[in-house]
């Protein structure tokens, strides 16, 4: 995955290290994009977490053109404020065939972010997990505040 390009806005640089050992330089502006009212953000990945399909809301909120998203690892949206343990829990849960829910702060291409309440389910076909579907919806601000506090402690 390519490093991010710093936007014109004031931003801070962070080096993310992913579970597979790969690294990515990201830039964070601290600007939050409000969740689009009434929408669901939907995406699918293969079993390795590579994005195979996404809906227009996913594209709009990410700030990337669709062509830049398909084929990329889902962690292209990883925000440095998210604790690695949250994603470990996500992967452990869905790889064991169960559904995962949680509040997630996602990173946009422009360095901004947006909060979601995410649910991830394994796609089981003929008894085999062939990928994962993630559906995000608008979280309440109370729940976001609680998640922010929790993740600060976990980091």
């Amino acid at each position, binding site marked *: 995955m390519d490093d991010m390009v710093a936007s014109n806005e004031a931003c801070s640089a962070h080096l993310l290290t992913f579970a597979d050992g790969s690294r990515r330089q990201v830039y964070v502006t601290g600007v939050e994009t409000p969740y689009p009212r009434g929408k*669901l953000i939907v995406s699918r990945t293969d079993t390795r977490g590579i994005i195979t399909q996404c809906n227009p809301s996913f594209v709009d909120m990410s700030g990337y053109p669709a062509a830049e998203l398909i084929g990329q690892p889902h962690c292209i949206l990883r925000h440095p404020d998210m604790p690695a343990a949250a994603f470990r829990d996500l992967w452990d849960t869905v790889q064991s065939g169960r559904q995962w829910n949680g509040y997630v702060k996602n990173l946009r291409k422009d360095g901004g972010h947006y909060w979601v309440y995410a649910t991830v389910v394994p796609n089981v076909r003929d008894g085999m997990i062939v990928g994962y579907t993630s559906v995000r919806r608008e*979280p309440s601000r109370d729940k976001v505040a609680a998640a922010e506090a929790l993740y600060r402690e976990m980091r």
Partner: protein
Amino acid sequence: MAFNFTVSPSFPNERISDWYIFNTWMQRSLDLPIHLELHNDFGAQRQAIAAGKVDMIYANPFDASLLVREQGFRAIARPEGKPDEMVIVVAADSPTQAVPDLLAGSRIACADDPCVNTIGRILLEPANLDGNNTTELRRETYIQVAKALLRGDADLGFMPVEAFENLSSLVRRDLRVLVASQIQVIHHAFLIGPILFEHATAITGLLLSMHQSDKGQAMLTALGAQRWQALEQEDVEFMIDIISTLTT
């Protein structure tokens, strides 16, 4: 013995005769005995499904999921065009401007469509509202949902977009859409049960070519659709995966 066909009871009452016309046309075209049974509510429909009295159904996305996963039904077509969406409405003079303004204790007018109500509940999550801190006022029809809002009996109402658009302009003028769902990926589907699998090719072919005749096109228009679109098993599986994230 006739095969049993039903339609999710979320369509407007004025379309009842159109579904009977559709059924008569389908029977003649397929040369199969098909009995159309329209249920008054979703509870009655689910009882019929559980009793094995449904062989063919035009179902909302939630029932379609249930039928495919738990009853072995096969989805063969969907109406082309807009996916299923709903709106949360308030009285035009309501002080509520956005969902987060809604307070605990809010009274929700709704009908018994589990699909609409589930999505409505999801759209209330930003206000921390759920079944524990709201009151649900069940109404028989969406006109009655609108009346509950206009009389001040309810603070907000759930209805399908189509039902809202079918309200008279006078009623709509006194209502305001607080939020409209834009889920984009779930839709009604036409399903057949295992007993009809041997006729799947004929039924699918009939539906997919329906728009090609003037009579077929007229029936589709009366039912609020333009044409049927083929559904692949993976399309349905994807929709089911999405619905499973909304219902558990």
